[in-house]
């Protein structure tokens, strides 16, 4: 069974994650790299945009927005939403997932991959949010 039954369910979780990490070191690095990263998910279909370039209304390092179509981004990672869940929960070997074709990347991938070491705290937040919502 799919991890998320609707885009809304996944978006609610990621919105809460974004609120908690928008001032984190990972978000700061995204801003320093001036990167806009998109995650394009299928089943359910939606796009997550993590924007470290545009100014935010509250002065945080980045914004996370959700879309139906792919907005302009420096790099995009396309996968099923199930694989997206694996990424956010920290259960994905990213280079292997790229090699296997589970994730298809386009754009400034080298820049984006530099952020990988900063991601584990985000995984913890994601897993905590899911646990709090009774989704684990």
């Amino acid at each position: 069974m799919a991890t998320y039954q609707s885009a809304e369910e996944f978006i609610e979780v990621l919105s809460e994650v974004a609120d908690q990490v928008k001032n984190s070191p990972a978000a700061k690095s995204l801003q320093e790299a001036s990167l806009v990263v998109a995650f394009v998910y299928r089943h359910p279909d939606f796009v997550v945009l993590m924007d470290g370039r545009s100014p935010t209304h509250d002065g945080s390092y980045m914004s996370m927005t959700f879309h139906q179509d792919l907005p302009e981004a420096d790099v995009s990672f396309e996968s099923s939403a199930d694989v997206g869940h694996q990424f956010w929960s920290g259960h994905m070997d990213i280079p292997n997932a790229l090699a296997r074709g589970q994730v298809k990347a386009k754009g400034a991938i080298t820049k984006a991959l530099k952020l990988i070491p900063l991601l584990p705290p985000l995984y913890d937040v994601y897993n905590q949010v899911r646990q709090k919502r009774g989704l684990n």
Partner: protein
Amino acid sequence: MQAAVLVDANEALQIVDVNLDKPGPKEVLVKMAAAGVCHSDWHVMQGDLPVPLPAILGHEGAGIVQEVGAEVVGVKPGDHVVLSWIPSCGHCFYCLKGRPDMCDEAFNIQLSGSLPGHAMRLHWAQGPLYHYLGTSCFAENTVVPDTGVIPIDAAIPLNKAALVGCAVTTGFGAVVHSAQVGPGDSVSVIGCGGVGLNVIQAAKLAGADPIIAMDANGKKRGLAEKFGATDFVDAAETDDLITPVIDLTKGRGADFAFEVIGRKETIEAAYGMVRKAGMAVIVGVAPPHMDVSFNAFSFPSQSKILTGSWYGQSIPRLDIPRILGLYQRGKLNLDDLVTQSYSLEHINDAFHELTEGTVGRGIIEF
């Protein structure tokens, strides 16, 4: 005689009276007993596989020899035979290299819609009818090249033997010849139709474990398990087929993955679910215009082997009797492959049910 004619793509088959010439010097006239209903015929009916039309389809059949040409030595009237849709010439580069599945002459026959020497033995009121894969066995009788008939033990029911003309040999050969699966190898199989089930049972016969079957029709679970699958993934419930295989193979990926559908997504997934230095075997026949994409860095860094298997890379004259021998000794299950039989008049119902995924293998009985 009656036959099922495909006049044009995206049309139903027409059951009509057609005429059949006497066999040429190196040809054999076979009275059909049974013919399997295969997705490849359906692809032709949908226009996905271009062949000359109008034609009589059907490429998986068995029957009894009625008449032979003057130069035929391998079979005689009364012999029970399975048709082979690769009537390999025996003297081209590929035949001499031991790869009759790649025979140039057989390939030309497949494309040209004729028999060797451009012979056309089928006619109807409107003119000549094209042959299909040198077999055209959706007909009460057919004329085929002598290289396309394989004599078999007359004790074997022809409605079981027919399936060895394609589905069984293709699945069996993909495992035994193309992949050479060994005891304890992990195997994943995407698609549990007539060919996929035979990949599964050949993998079981080879000692593979686990054997992970996948299909978008959850109802195939029972059949897949009956033929030897140890695990089943319902592809309708996730479009990530790779993770379940990783999970079931100690995090490595399968030693061998077999794609038996012919879709872009599943071909890419088959490559992705194989372990480093493992092998993905594409058995499913995709439309000629389809492209697939793979991560280029993975070719050197993961050193996987990506290959195809056409008719199970088989040598029909050796493999068809071998497979039927395994059936007679209870090692291969042909009895449960046929889940529905139809008369020629109901052949369009057979294709409808094939596309609904409600049958393992349907068969036309004459």
